[in-house]
């Protein structure tokens, strides 16, 4: 799976396979190594063993809610440097100040998430990681 071990890891947590494909294309194009989880359970399992530089998190997931995963990332010391991009179809959630003001959340994107937008965002993120300033 790993093509270049120096590339930072991105974990995409998204139950819609089409959306997941679009997100991974955008992040791969920005030179991230990409892993995909299609359920919250699967995502939590992955997060036990890996410490991604960025998590693309769809808030609406079956079985385990996106909010619970966000809590886990916030409280797990191993994931201190992990940054989160939230994806949601819900305008109201995107506008929720409580979510906006979480330090880990660098962006909230409302569906449809345009490939080029996420690509641009990922490239900026990549630069900041390389530069060492989160």
């Amino acid at each position, binding site marked *: 799976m790993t093509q270049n071990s120096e590339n930072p890891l991105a974990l995409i947590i998204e139950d819609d396979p089409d*959306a997941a494909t679009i997100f991974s294309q955008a992040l791969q194009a920005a030179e991230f190594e990409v892993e995909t989880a299609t359920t919250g359970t699967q995502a939590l399992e992955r997060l036990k063993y890996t410490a991604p530089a960025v998590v693309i998190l769809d808030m609406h997931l079956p079985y385990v809610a996106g909010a619970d995963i966000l809590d886990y990332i916030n409280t797990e010391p191993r994931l201190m440097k992990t940054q989160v991009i939230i994806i949601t179809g819900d305008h109201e959630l995107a506008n929720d100040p409580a979510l906006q003001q979480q330090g880990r959340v660098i962006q909230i994107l409302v569906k*449809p998430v345009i490939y080029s937008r996420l690509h641009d965002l990922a490239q900026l993120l990549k630069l900041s990681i390389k530069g060492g300033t989160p």
Partner: protein
Amino acid sequence: MLTSKTKRTKRMTRMTSVVSHWLDVPSTDPDDARRRKLLNILLAGIAALVLLALAATVIGNAAGLLTASERFLLYQTTILTLIGIAVIFAINRYWSGQIAGALFLLLLLAALAFSDEPKQVADGRALFLFSIPILTASVILRPWASFIAAGLSGLEISVIALRALQGIPPVPTILGLFAVALVSWISARTLERALADLRAINRELDHRVEERTRDLAEALSRNQAILEAIADGVIVFDTAGKATLANPAMAQLVDHPPEEIIGHDIKALANTKVNQEDLQVIGELLRDTHRDYPTLKLEWGRKTLSASFAPVRDDSGRRTGTVVVFRDFTREAEVERMKSAFVSSISHELRTPLNAILGYADMLKEGVYGPVVEKQAMALERIIVNGQRQLNIVNDLLDQAQIEAGTLKIKVAPFSPRDLVEDVTSLMEVLARSKGLTLTGHVANDVPDKLPGDRQRLRQILINLVDNAIKFTAEGSVQIQVYLPDARHWAMEVTDTGRGIPLEAQPYIFEPFRQVDDPTTREHAGSGLGLAIVKQLTNLMGGEVVLKSQVGHGSTFTIILPLVPIQEDLR
């Protein structure tokens, strides 16, 4: 002390009723009853006098003041009189007032013959004595009976005069008697007529009271029938908050029989079935006399009820309580919930594949899957533009459904108007360019960096307005402007150089599913909800939409919103 006074009053009342029981004579004719009662009163008065005379005789006899013949005469007279009174009383009470009255008068006249010296009777000095039977006749028999009494008196006097004086009858005395008879006839007749009038008035009054009572009873029973038949729960609380009336529907709604509801307050009725917050609101509405009485929706156990409040006032306008009408909304609420859930789920289902279409088209266009030639890029552009448009329609429908259901919430937080304009401009630029239009955005210098508002909803308003402007503009430009029209408001404005909106169409372009009726409308197909949502969202935010447009000279839509200070906790 109080009790002894009450006792005395009670005893008096009982005595009065005993006396009036013996004086009253039951009769269907009120005149007859009155005359017979009057006769009884006269008899009682005379009896009392005779008894006094009898007592005086007894005392005089004991003192030895009387001779044997005097004693005999007095005893005989008094006892005979008492017997006569008793007989007349019995006749009057149990047989006929007329006969009793006639008998009384005859006895009276007979007694008068011995009232004085025959000479004095005959020469008229006893005239005043004879006016007694004349007056009495007019009131206890008939008014005209006074003349008969006068005639009899005159006859009696004449006989006495002829026998005692052997002279001529005393004509002036007899004439005087007839004059007295005339006066008493007139008085008695007037009195009887007045009484008859009074009785007629009383009868009329009784009749009216009866009629009103019947009307009232009818109205009451009609109201009662309405109250019993109505499907809504009706309950009336007094000013102390206790229930004074509840209809069967109310009993059914709260699952208590009416007798268990009456006398209790709302807290006891609701028990644990209503949450504290709603209970408090109900309590306030029951107490508050000045507020508007709105309709409240609340959960009551497993039911959803609406409650309408209205004050109850008496004739003088004083508030005596509150009537509350409860309606069972359980089914409607369930349908509403299902509809909302359905709309939101179908919107999600519609959006998911559209999002994928847009995402893949975008990736193709960006060359992710290899180089794209110009014609392919144009085709992809069309896919994206149309997909986006369809997505907007789905979003519009969802918003409209939420606005109608009242579930759409406005969340106010500080946002940057400059970011907003930039965001919308860059988003809509593609669409504008595809029609050869220029789209510009401008924020005036005096507009603060942060404004309070729901950024997402403001963005939606702006997108809808710009989309609409692009749709109806063939050439020229679309401009977005943000500025401060006065010290208390800020404004977002979208101006186009399109064909304008006719004056007669302007009032209804904000209605849902309405577009300007025009053959060209078809080619600009959309949900027809864009402007309706703009208006409804603006109103929800406490603002207003102003439209200035002239056919051939473009349109300007201005959204004016209150510039309320940003709240501390939102900063």
